């Protein structure tokens, strides 16, 4: 239907007969003149924003690695350096709060380079009119999370925006930590033969947030998995310093993390769908909403690409840590279909697990 028709009221010029030869799904728009929510969804639109706007404007060499954190040399030390902003609603949810996320998110980004977070900065952007008790509660949660993670909040900043120009409380944290000698963990190091391990059940954080945000009841309360992963990574590094890739599958979920690694290293990834740990409450919630657990956010999980010879020992070390008791081998890195992630279904077929465009949307059917 490449025709043009002018509408007035509800009258439409009908074609002579339905014609099924040209039918297909309409193609989503890609080029937006203004920012839309999908630019923050951790998928293809987020990546295009970085590639087309930020990276050319900033021009730094380090940024080009596009990892969870940057590893920089300074005064003879190798530092991991990362920043993250937090705009979650509601501020408090089952299993955590924006304060927990602000610490754990940045601590985990550093941990994905093998670094133990040492210092954090914390920026508060407060909306005029928000109750001081809420600010106090967020600050206490943040402080408690920092103590649990063994990181010091060393510097901070506060700004207030006019009522209606914010959403109560926004946070930004940046962090630094030392990368141990002999450790080189980055997406580009994935090689065919690597074993892919996930540290536990996926999808909990995204479903927990959705259930409280949308007032959806799934019969059981689903708690966020929000946690600091520094200790788990230490346990893995104690087995071998030769971990190839670690990734914290937050926005865009496991699917986005694996696609970024596959693209960054120019390798393929093959998953065994049955091996991916999806808890029943997440599977059920996703079935109701028409979402795929592979694309749902996590806040206390990591995915690791490990040399095959080290995989058993690394898996055992993960399972002996409280945050890795359900760790599982979910697939492997292959030379075929570089840049693509493929899942073997439970029935023996295969499907492509692609990078999400923007936000994952509940499906009507």
């Amino acid at each position, binding site marked *: 239907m490449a025709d043009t028709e002018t509408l007035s009221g509800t009258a439409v010029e009908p074609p002579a007969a339905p014609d099924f030869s040209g*039918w297909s799904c*309409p193609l*989503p728009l890609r080029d937006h003149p203004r920012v839309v929510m999908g630019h923050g969804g951790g998928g293809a639109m987020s990546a295009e924003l970085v590639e087309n706007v930020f990276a050319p404007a900033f021009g730094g060499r380090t940024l080009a690695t596009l990892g969870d954190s940057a590893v920089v040399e300074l005064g003879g030390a190798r530092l991991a350096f990362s920043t993250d902003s937090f705009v979650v609603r509601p501020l408090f949810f089952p299993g955590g709060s924006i304060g927990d996320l602000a610490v754990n998110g940045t601590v985990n980004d550093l941990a994905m380079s093998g670094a133990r977070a040492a210092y954090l900065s914390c920026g508060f952007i407060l909306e005029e009119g928000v109750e001081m008790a809420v600010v106090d509660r967020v600050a206490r949660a943040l402080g408690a999370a920092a103590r649990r993670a063994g990181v010091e909040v060393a510097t901070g900043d506060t700004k207030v925006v006019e009522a209606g120009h914010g959403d109560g409380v926004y946070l930004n944290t940046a962090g630094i930590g030392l990368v141990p000698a002999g450790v080189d963990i980055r997406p580009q190091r994935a090689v065919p033969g690597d074993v892919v391990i996930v540290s536990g059940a996926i999808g909990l954080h995204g479903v927990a947030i959705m259930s409280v945000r949308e007032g959806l009841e799934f019969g059981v309360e689903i708690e966020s998995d929000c946690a600091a992963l520094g200790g788990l990574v230490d346990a893995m590094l104690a087995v071998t310093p030769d971990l190839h890739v670690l990734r914290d599958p937050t926005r865009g979920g496991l699917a986005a993390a694996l696609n970024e690694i596959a693209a960054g290293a120019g390798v393929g990834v093959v998953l065994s769908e049955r091996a991916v740990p999806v808890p029943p409450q997440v599977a059920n919630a996703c079935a109701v909403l028409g979402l795929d657990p592979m694309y749902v956010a996590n806040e206390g999980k990591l995915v690791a690409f490990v040399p095959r010879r080290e995989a058993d020992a690394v898996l055992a070390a993960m399972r002996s840590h409280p945050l890795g008791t359900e760790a599982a081998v979910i697939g492997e890195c292959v030379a075929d279909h570089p840049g693509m992630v493929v899942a073997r279904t439970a029935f023996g077929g295969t499907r492509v697990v692609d990078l999400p465009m923007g936000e994952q949307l509940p499906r009507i059917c």
Partner: protein
Amino acid sequence: MKYLEEFQNPELASGLLADIRATVTRPWALMEVCGGQTHTIIRHAIDQLLPDGVELIHGPGCPVCVTPLEMIDRALAIAARPDVVFCSFGDMLRVPGTDRDLFRVRGEGGDVRVVYSPLDALRIARDNPDREVVFFGIGFETTAPPNAMAVHQARKLGIRNFSMLVSHVRVPPAIEAIMASPDCRVQGFLAAGHVCSVMGTAEYPALAERHEVPIVVTGFEPLDILEGIRRTVRQLERGEHAVENAYARAVRPEGNPAARAMLEDVFEVTDRAWRGIGVIPQSGWRLSERYRDHDAEHRFDVTGITTREPAQCRSGEVLQGLLKPHQCEAFGTTCTPRTPLGATMVSSEGACAAYYLYRRLSTPPAPKEASRVG
């Protein structure tokens, strides 16, 4: 929710697949009508596991994709108004109109909200009496009853600032149009189980008889789909064309009388344009005269809209099984997953994307003449 595990059991699936293989003696082309079934088929790679010759043609059964362009443009114009809160199911936000989508309208300042039920939109209207709240009522017979209920409730409760932009579509007239198409290749239908759970099965025997096709009411889990395929090919092999219910745990012959009564009260049947297909007679619902006060098309005089559909790629032919992806001249050259020309190259559910991944090295492009299909 234990159904999820039970109806995704790989061992049981193997048994059904073995039965299908043992039954089939020649090629058959089946159509699954509903987009939800297509999703299950692709998600679990069921199409790859069927015996050679059993082909699944994906029907135009995704209400999001078939919502006519002029209706999307009308929604965009209404959603852009400063006095409106526009509520919609999530996946409509990404569907492009002539030059923008609901995401873009929201980025430009429009108050566009994702809801999970039309009753959520009704609540928003009740809580914001100074705003006009519009719900985008799309979908097949499955989503129509709750949408009808929301309009019914709005009138009953006197919530005058609630209206609905209705673009509902009906399955049986679409099957009729597909079967009446001169180049129709479809030999059997998997009917949409959720639609039948509302409407029952009374509309199907006449279709099966008139076009001599088996119609099997089918559910949405992998085992449901396989059972639907098994029963359809069994009928085809025997030369039968009956209506069967393979989704008896959800579908009664009479459907859901309360839901149907609500539909009859609130909606009336109308001709409806399907995006990319054209007008199918009697294939839609609109609000009936009694509920005209809550009809957003009448409340917001959105006129002077000029729709323009971008040049199509040949994915329509791919979807109908007339053209293999690698036979399209754009395949792998101007059309790749990174720079798609059509929906079939966009996502993991796209036939072209799957071909691009697995077969582009082994299948040289070969142009093919376009043809028509139902």
